């Protein structure tokens, strides 16, 4: 039974694609599920659950079921399974195999991703307004979901890369969602290209491994023997193949996971599905990126890149947290916090804390999903409030004042207007801030900083600082959105959303907080006994034998205390700055106390640069256009080179002409130009017709021949 389930794992990524295909080509039916009374009193069909949504939900549910079955299978038989492997093509003397790889890590990730996608699909049903849009939305969503599932089930870096790239395409297809919006498209493109930088590094790494090992299957690449060999094979200068490959994979991961999700929501854009899209694309992308690192863990541990990974992770964590702390746009805030969280994961892997990293990754996916959904709910509520204030009588297509529903400075006091959302968001925020005991994040974070504490001290401090900042930026939106008084009319009239939206959030909130208990380290006082750490041993079976280099899940007490203190401090600071009293409003704009504080401290530039108004993109653009101009100029040069060859030919020809007509040819030329004929010469001769002279000539010549022929005795 179990092998059979594993064998079916390939269906998991296939299902979303089939569903997408079905939606793309299927009949355009809409199912009416509800009618509503409009203010004018007439019944109008308002809300549909479209066939696309149904297909998508059914597909994701099926995928989830399968994933759960696979997870069950791995629980029953932990360890690595490769139930399927077929020949793909041959290159050189090697045959490339492709198949399925199932292990606890993959199974957990599968469940996580399918679950997130399923919930998000259900949740987005209430968002989607019209059928074509739904179609496009679900196709892109399913595309991405399928891609990340593909990344998870394959046994082969090549296939992983394939799906990895499809994931990029999935994000890219968002452009299709916003066909007419140039700005959004441009940012999607920009993101794609940035990702592409990472991808090309990854491809390089892949090519390197392929060339050195002759295969890209995990079992060949990450076997102890291979890894050891790669670690000792020199490649570029002092770097070994393993190191270079690890760095390249790291580049791929960063390229995939670190860039912000596309600037999704423009002020006043009507589509509401965007946060969900962001969730699916963003969360899945991040998981895929980190999954690569987790997969390649055996290689990383043997390479010289571990410290680099840890440092990069720390830097990302700190940077993301810093930037998240100052954002006033909720979506951007969440995006930067995602980046920061990925940094934590990388840092964990960098110190060899495999289980902790994975745990952090999964937990993050859960609470970030929660936060995203809550943010979507808030924005939706705000829009409803906005519609309420601008009146129902105005038809949809008439242009009216737009609001930026993601701007937290325009919110405030929503706790009572949207209580369910508020509770969910709070739960997510606390999880994000890794508040002890109340969140899943605490355990993993504690472990990571503990690990760093014992190996690299300065990064450990940085990481602790990042945790504090994360806590601050988790509290900040809570305070800004839900506490004090509303700061705009839309916020004043905002309303709680329908159950289809709030219920999934509620369920999710419970999950997000509860799951963390699965990973409490054994050494933790009291709780360590209460809930034995099942997670670590379970996932560590994913690693092949001889590769378990996992930092024991001990909890050093110094970092733990520092971490708790910093977290609490961050939360308190957030509340103190934003939740204590209403923000002052100057004119139209709300003053952000943080920025005001930074200004007062004489660091205005800091806030701005953290907000991203640094102009780096412009500079890069200018450099780019200079390069392009140079390239085009070079083209002219080459053309000129060819032309000059032609000119040399022409010149030679002129020279010949000169010789022909010049001093060398002067003698010849006197022959070449007809000699002058003088009149008096002619007059003497001009008695008979010319023909006769010609005739004479001829007769003479003919006679001559005759003479020769007759008297041929020479």
């Amino acid at each position: 039974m179990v092998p059979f389930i594993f064998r079916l794992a390939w269906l998991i990524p296939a299902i979303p694609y089939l569903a997408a295909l079905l939606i793309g080509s299927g009949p355009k039916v809409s199912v009416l599920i509800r009618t509503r009374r409009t203010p004018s009193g007439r019944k109008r069909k308002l809300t549909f659950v479209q066939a696309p949504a149904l297909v998508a939900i059914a597909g994701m549910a099926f995928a989830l079921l399968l994933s759960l079955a696979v997870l069950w299978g791995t629980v029953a038989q932990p360890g690595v399974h490769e139930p399927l492997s077929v020949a793909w093509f041959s290159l050189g003397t090697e045959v490339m195999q492709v198949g399925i790889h199932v292990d606890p890590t993959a199974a957990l990730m599968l469940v996580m991703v399918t679950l997130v996608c399923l919930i998000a699909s259900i949740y987005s049903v209430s968002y989607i307004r019209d059928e074509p849009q739904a179609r496009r939305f679900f196709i892109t969503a399913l595309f991405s979901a399928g891609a990340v599932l593909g990344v998870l089930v394959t046994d082969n870096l090549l296939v992983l890369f394939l799906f990895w790239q499809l994931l990029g395409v999935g994000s890219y297809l968002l452009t299709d969602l916003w066909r007419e919006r140039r700005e959004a498209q441009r940012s999607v493109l920009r993101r794609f290209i940035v990702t592409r930088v990472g991808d090309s590094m990854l491809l390089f790494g892949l090519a390197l491994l392929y060339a050195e090992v002759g295969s890209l299957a995990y079992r060949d690449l990450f076997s102890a023997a291979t890894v050891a060999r790669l670690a000792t094979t020199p490649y570029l200068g002092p770097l070994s193949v393993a190191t270079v490959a690890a760095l390249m994979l790291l580049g791929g991961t960063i390229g995939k996971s670190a860039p912000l999700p596309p600037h999704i929501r423009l002020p006043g854009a009507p589509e509401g599905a965007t946060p969900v899209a962001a969730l699916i694309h963003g969360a899945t992308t991040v998981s895929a990126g980190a999954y690569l690192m987790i997969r390649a863990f055996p290689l990383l541990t043997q390479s010289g890149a571990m410290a680099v990974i840890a440092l990069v992770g720390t830097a990302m964590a700190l940077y993301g947290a810093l930037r998240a702390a100052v954002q006033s746009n909720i979506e951007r805030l969440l995006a930067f916090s995602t980046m920061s969280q990925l940094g934590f994961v990388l840092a964990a892997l960098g110190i060899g804390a495999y289980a902790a990293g994975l745990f952090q990754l999964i937990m993050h996916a859960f609470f970030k999903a929660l936060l995203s959904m809550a943010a979507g709910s808030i924005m939706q509520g705000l829009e409803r409030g906005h519609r309420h204030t601008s009146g129902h009588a105005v038809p949809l297509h008439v242009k009216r004042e737009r609001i930026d529903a993601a701007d937290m400075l325009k919110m405030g006091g929503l706790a009572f207007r949207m209580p369910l959302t508020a509770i969910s968001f709070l739960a997510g925020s606390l999880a994000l801030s890794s508040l002890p005991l109340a969140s899943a994040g605490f355990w993993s974070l504690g472990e990571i900083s503990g690990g760093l504490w014992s190996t690299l001290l300065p990064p450990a401090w940085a990481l602790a600082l990042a945790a504090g900042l994360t806590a601050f930026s988790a509290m900040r939106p809570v305070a800004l959105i839900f506490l004090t008084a509303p700061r705009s009319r839309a916020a004043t009239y905002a309303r709680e959303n329908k159950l289809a939206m709030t219920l999934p959030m509620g369920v999710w909130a419970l999950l997000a907080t509860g799951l963390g208990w699965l990973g409490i380290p054994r050494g933790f006082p009291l709780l360590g006994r209460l809930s034995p750490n099942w997670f670590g041993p379970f996932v560590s079976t994913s690693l092949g034998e001889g590769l378990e280099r996992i930092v024991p899940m001990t909890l050093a007490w110094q970092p733990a205390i520092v971490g708790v203190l910093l977290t609490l401090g961050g939360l308190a600071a957030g509340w103190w700055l934003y939740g204590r009293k209403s923000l002052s409003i100057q004119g139209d704009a709300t003053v952000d106390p943080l920025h005001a504080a930074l200004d007062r401290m004489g660091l205005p530039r800091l806030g701005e640069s953290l907000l991203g108004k640094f102009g780096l993109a412009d500079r890069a653009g200018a450099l780019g256009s200079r390069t392009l101009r140079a390239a085009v100029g070079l083209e002219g040069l080459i053309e000129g080179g060819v032309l000059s060859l032609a000119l040399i030919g022409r010149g030679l020809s002129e020279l010949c002409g000169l010789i022909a007509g010049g001093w060398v040819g002067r003698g010849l030329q006197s022959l070449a130009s007809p000699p002058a004929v003088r009149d008096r010469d002619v007059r003497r001769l001009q008695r008979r017709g010319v023909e006769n002279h010609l005739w004479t000539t001829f007769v003479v010549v003919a006679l001559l021949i005759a003479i020769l022929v007759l008297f041929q005795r020479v």
Partner: protein
Amino acid sequence: MLISDYLYLAPVLSLLAGALLILLLDLLADREQMGRWGWKAALASGLLALGSTFLLGDAPVRVLNVLAYDVFTAYVWRLLLGALVLLILLGESYVRSHTDEPGLFYALLMFFAAGALLVAASTNTMMLLLAVELLSIAGTLLVGFLHADRRATQGAIRCLVYGSAMTAVMALGFSWFYGLTGTTDYALTSEALSGLWGSSPAPVIRPIALVPVLAFVLVGLVVKTGSAPFHHWLPGASDVSGGFVGASAPVAASLAILPKVAGFAALVRLTLVMLPEALDLHIVWRWPLVGILAVAAMLWGSLLGLRQHNIKRLMAFSGIAQLGYVLIGVVLATEAGLSALLVALTAYVLAEMGTFTAIAVVSQKMPLDLVSDYRGLYRRAPLLALGLLLFILSLFGMPGTAGFIGKLWLFTETFRAGYIGLLILAALSSVISLGYYGRVVRAGFMDSDAGMAPVPVPAAASVVLIAMMVGVLVLGIFPNTWLRWAQAAAQVFFASG
């Protein structure tokens, strides 16, 4: 066996007879009748001559002690006579519309051809001189054929002055040969020359002193036959310098084909029969003398061709370059090299014939013969344009055409003989020649035909065109038979020695 000797002269005699017959007819018939019958009579005698070459067999024969009839001669004669027949066809419409003396034209053409045949076959310096003179006088008259026209006459004068001077130069060279050996026969000269320095008494004259003599002969022959760079008269004969045609297109074609082929045959004979291979003289002749001539011809023709705007001049320079390549065959002077020479020469004749047919047709409409007159030719006369393209490609050496086979063989043999520099220069000149070939093609195919009238193609001309196109292609793709002929012809000089 005097009678049988005359038998071997049948081609020449039938041409002369044809010429005399036409002259006779010319006295009796009026212009209109002549226009109708003249070309037919000429054609008949041309065909007769051509046919008779096939009846003569392959065995080498010395005719009247001054001519050699062998496979080589037969090959060249057939080539010449084939060209003659086509020239008659080609000239037909042109002559009818351009002159009131059609009979004279054909008669001159026949004399011209007869001269060419004799040049190709002669094995005696005296005979050669005489035959060249016949060729050159008939040629001069042909150039001046539109004699009422002043500029045509000037072209003829130029021909005459040049030609006569070169006759003198060549004759001087021959006189020295005679003086050294006491004979005018090639083979005997060769023997005598080898004996000259082999004998016990100290030689009268050192071989190096003969180099100027060789140069005289070479220059004279080559310039007379128009295959070298010194002959401004050839482009000049068909030029537009005064804003007018020097020679009509059929005449230009005749000048471009007959004397050159004949001249090459004579050159080959001189090289292989008269100059004993054992002697340094032979080497001197081949490499510095003929070789330099070849290089000069190739580069000069290609480079000056670039400057031409008149298509006849352009083709004349292209012809110079082409014959420069052919001269390489003389430089090699091996059996294969000689075969290659014949092949290249034949390919040249085919292409040149075709090109001049096209030019003749167009110049009936637009007598200035500027390249720009060919604008949009593809839309005005597709057959003409395609033919022109094909011939030009053949001249360039495009694979699939006869020109390629010739060049390929020549180049292969050159490589084998180790004349790498020569080869590279030939390739270079080929590339340069693309410049002007490209211009013709561009005018014909790319330029718009706005303001240009369609060009009607006379039936005879289209027959020639199609025949040449087919010939160029067939010989380019299935050249086996042709190559066998050429090999057989070349063997003549090597089988015995």
